[in-house]
């Protein structure tokens, strides 16, 4: 129990690595979306997301979501991936944020909760539906894009679509080193967990987490210097 925050941190780090590894696997599968040009996918993705946000009809947004699921199936992207990486987390965050809307929105009363005396309104339910459907639909679209396109291709497409070169390079290199730092933090947390014998006091826990983060900062800086040298060595001049 004492190392709860360690477990949670380790879990978050794992999930990110896992998500990206899954994307790397499914992206190389031969499916419907994988066969499309990344530039086309990017454009369709953007249109779909804007449509989902701008639409004033629950049915339309639900239709988009359904279409997304069908495309996912046709692209051999396992539904379990969508459930565990998109639908549940989004429901947990965006959904939780939306629950009070059911009771807080004024409007036509549909039913009244016993004891609490809270009213559920038609407008509240509609509002809740909008929030959930919109966030689920856009997250599904984004993950379909990511799960069906290997990262290098996606970055190349961004470049072809006139995203400034330096921005693409920055994003690419950041993504690459996120992995290194994720693994490094994971190792640090795991080694600290394995050495934990007694319960830590509050301040010891905070010291542990901030020294881990501190190591990560210094390591990041040292790496940036070394990477800079490696780039210059191969003729990089900006």
């Amino acid at each position: 129990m004492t190392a709860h925050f360690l477990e949670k941190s380790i879990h978050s780090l794992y999930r990110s690595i896992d998500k990206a590894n899954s994307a790397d696997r499914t992206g190389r599968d031969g499916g419907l979306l994988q066969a499309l040009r990344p530039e086309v996918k990017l454009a369709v993705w953007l249109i779909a997301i804007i449509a989902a946000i701008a639409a004033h009809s629950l049915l339309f947004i639900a239709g988009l979501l359904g279409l997304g699921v069908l495309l996912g199936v046709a692209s051999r992207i396992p539904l379990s991936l969508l459930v565990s990486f998109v639908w549940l987390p989004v429901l947990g965050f965006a959904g939780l944020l939306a629950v009070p809307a059911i009771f807080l929105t004024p409007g036509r009363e549909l039913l009244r909760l016993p004891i609490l005396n809270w009213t559920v309104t038609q407008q509240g339910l509609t509002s809740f539906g909008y929030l959930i459907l919109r966030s689920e639909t856009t997250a599904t679209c984004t993950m379909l894009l990511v799960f069906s396109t290997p990262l290098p291709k996606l970055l190349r497409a961004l470049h072809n679509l006139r995203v400034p070169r330096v921005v693409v390079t920055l994003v690419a290199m950041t993504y690459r080193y996120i992995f290194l730092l994720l693994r490094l933090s994971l190792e640090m947390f795991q080694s600290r967990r394995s050495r934990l014998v007694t319960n830590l006091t509050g301040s010891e826990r905070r010291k542990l987490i901030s020294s881990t983060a501190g190591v990560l900062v210094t390591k990041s800086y040292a790496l940036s210097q070394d990477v800079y040298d490696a780039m210059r060595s191969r003729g990089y001049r900006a």
Partner: protein
Amino acid sequence: MPALFELESVSFSYDGVVALDGLTMTVQPGQRLALLGANGSGKSTLLKLLDALQFAGAGKLSFCGETLTEDRFAHDAFQYAFRKRVGFVFQNPDVQLFSPSVRDELEFGPAQLRLPPDEMNRRVTDAMDLFEISHLADRAPHHLSGGEKKKVALASVLVMQPEVVLLDEPTSGLDPRSQTNLINLLDKWDDGSKTIITATHDLHMLEDLAGQCVILERGRLIAEGNTAHILGDRDLLQRANLIHAHRSLRHSGIHAHHHMHELPEMGSD
């Protein structure tokens, strides 16, 4: 014909900590030279100076008769000519492999040299064939194994077809078979005209890597000679902390933690 590298009492320090102390030596074209020394002996610093990533604090370092100074590297033409001829394979492949995919990584150097696209493609394809990494072309570097990373790192430098290659601990962290593979690749690539300078404290692959050795200790040159001769001198190796240093190979797996406690002397080994 001038020597390839010529060092005259070269010194270098990081924030007051001396890394190289009055070093004088020469490197001839076509030589295979090993820089031996324990951790902190200054060999990584020396490699960085040879690659003009850092510049001598005192003394003179010249390449083919041209003194290497920061001012000269401000000129594009000089920098271009130097970078084209000298390549550097870093010890940590995670530092060397910064591009999103293996193909991008191999293209980086040739692109900086502004090679025409078809020439670039030809070289990248050749290098991938030579190193047998074609199947990895579209993989991201962080999805590669340790051995694959080292191979790609070496390929990303050799694809630029330099005359001189500087290698920092090329065999560290590799299993015996990958070590042999790596050295075979270097042999396959070298047509006899290349200069290969290797910094290492790994003695058991030494004879395959270098014909000549210099031994550094705390930034000073304490011995030089041919490899067989140096390897026969156990007293010397012990004095340079190389026989014990051999054992530290086992710990190279946790090298990731090595740098972070010595930030002020970044880049020194």
